[in-house]
């Protein structure tokens, strides 16, 4: 009950927007992050990448997106900074450069993971 109220408060704060992406209905928060990582598909990632100005997702992009997703589903949370670097073999600086919107708004968003909502 309490958790439901929490989730609903979080949804209210972060907003909700339903869009049709690659033929599927996806619910995003106000910052464009997936509310439900299960709604992600490779087609959705490609469509969102194109929207962000990335014509095609290369091998490095896919390696990062797959690692982020696999880690999330195995551990129930996103990987730490050093775990991303260790797990992908790609530095965070390179990763930032690979995605037009950087790490958080590029890679993490395209991987379909929920908003990390760090305290800002």
């Amino acid at each position, binding site marked *: 009950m309490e958790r439901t109220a929490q989730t609903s408060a979080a949804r209210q704060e972060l907003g909700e927007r339903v869009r049709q992406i690659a033929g599927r209905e996806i619910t995003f928060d106000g910052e464009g992050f997936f509310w439900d990582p299960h709604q992600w598909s490779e087609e959705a990632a490609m469509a969102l990448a194109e929207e962000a100005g990335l014509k095609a997702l290369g091998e490095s992009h896919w390696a990062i997106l797959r690692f982020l997703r696999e880690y999330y589903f195995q551990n129930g949370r996103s990987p730490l900074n050093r775990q991303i670097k260790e797990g992908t073999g790609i530095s965070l600086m390179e990763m*930032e450069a690979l995605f037009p919107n950087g790490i958080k708004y590029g890679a993490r968003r395209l991987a379909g993971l929920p908003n990390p909502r760090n*305290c800002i």
Partner: protein
Amino acid sequence: MASLRKIIYLDNAATTFPKPREVLEEMVDVYANLGVSPGRGSYDLSMEAEERVMDIRREVCQFFGGSDPERVIFSYNATDALNTLIQGLIRPNSRVVSSRLEHNSVLRPLHYFSHQGIIRLDLIPFGAEGFVDPVAVAEAIRTDTSFVILTHASNVLGAVQPVERIGAICRERGVPFVLDVTQTAGRLPIRLEEWGVSAIAFTGHKSLLGPTGIGGLVLSPGLDVEATRFGGTGRDSLSLDHTRVYPQRLEPGTINVAGIFGLSAGLRYISRRGLENICSREVDLAKRLHDGLTSISGVRVYPAILRDPSVAIMLCNVDGMDPEDLSSILDGDFGIAARAGLHCAPLVHEDLGTSPRGGVRFSLGPFNTDEDIDKVLEAMNTISRSK
């Protein structure tokens, strides 16, 4: 264990890390021997614990330039202390003067009362280098102003405010002056009564080097703060009215004894190393960092010019990079822990033009070294060149 990794820790404005081992050891040792409810029982140990806590009230009082140790009130942190003060000083239909430099621990309680129509809020702007003009404070004070509340040093820009001049103005106008010393306690000497300050709110876990969960207030003799929380105090239990006697008036419930012992150990550590030595060392490192950052192309530093007096805090951004990404890169690629975002001071960022994404804050502490600063500058150089 992640904490065993060697990192360069530059988030000391959030909390100092690591804490001196001797502080932790002393805290555990005293708590192991005196960890009972102080002054609430007539057995010896309770009396001894109360005596020790009273000694620490004296230490804290002296450290901040107060005169009455019974007016040292322990709280859980600065936010808790500030809420106690703000809620206890608010008068309906009055005005409160504060500034746009404040942390949300001041802004949010004031905004709440303002939004409820209970007070009118006058927020003073700050200049390019992060200082509030005392003349603006004087102009903002009206006959119905119930108190002035300001930060001693911005948690984003590090600028130390001209509190002696503001204190003199408040004293002359007969308006209580509340000072939030969260970022300066343990970094700068603080002279509560000499400066005309009516109350200070502090936290124990930042530059005072104590544990989290302990903070407090020191009140000048002339200031009365109404209790807004009530409960057991260990005295006059027959009465259903909460005591009006300090410190219990503002300290309902059992106090954080372990935290208080840790705070005391932190104060002694500072005294051994010397407050002036700690501060001047941090400021020297900050100047070195500021000079280095401002010379890197593509890096914006706030404040652009580091003016004295300041504590070792500054904000920066790399052109074309999200601050959270910059912080992730510093952490993941270079082992540098620095805080990205708005730092709970949204109006500062609004006025700097860094809202809504904020910036990356470097805040130095007593354990940072020249080598740390060199590594940060090297990292920032590499990162800025990647853009």
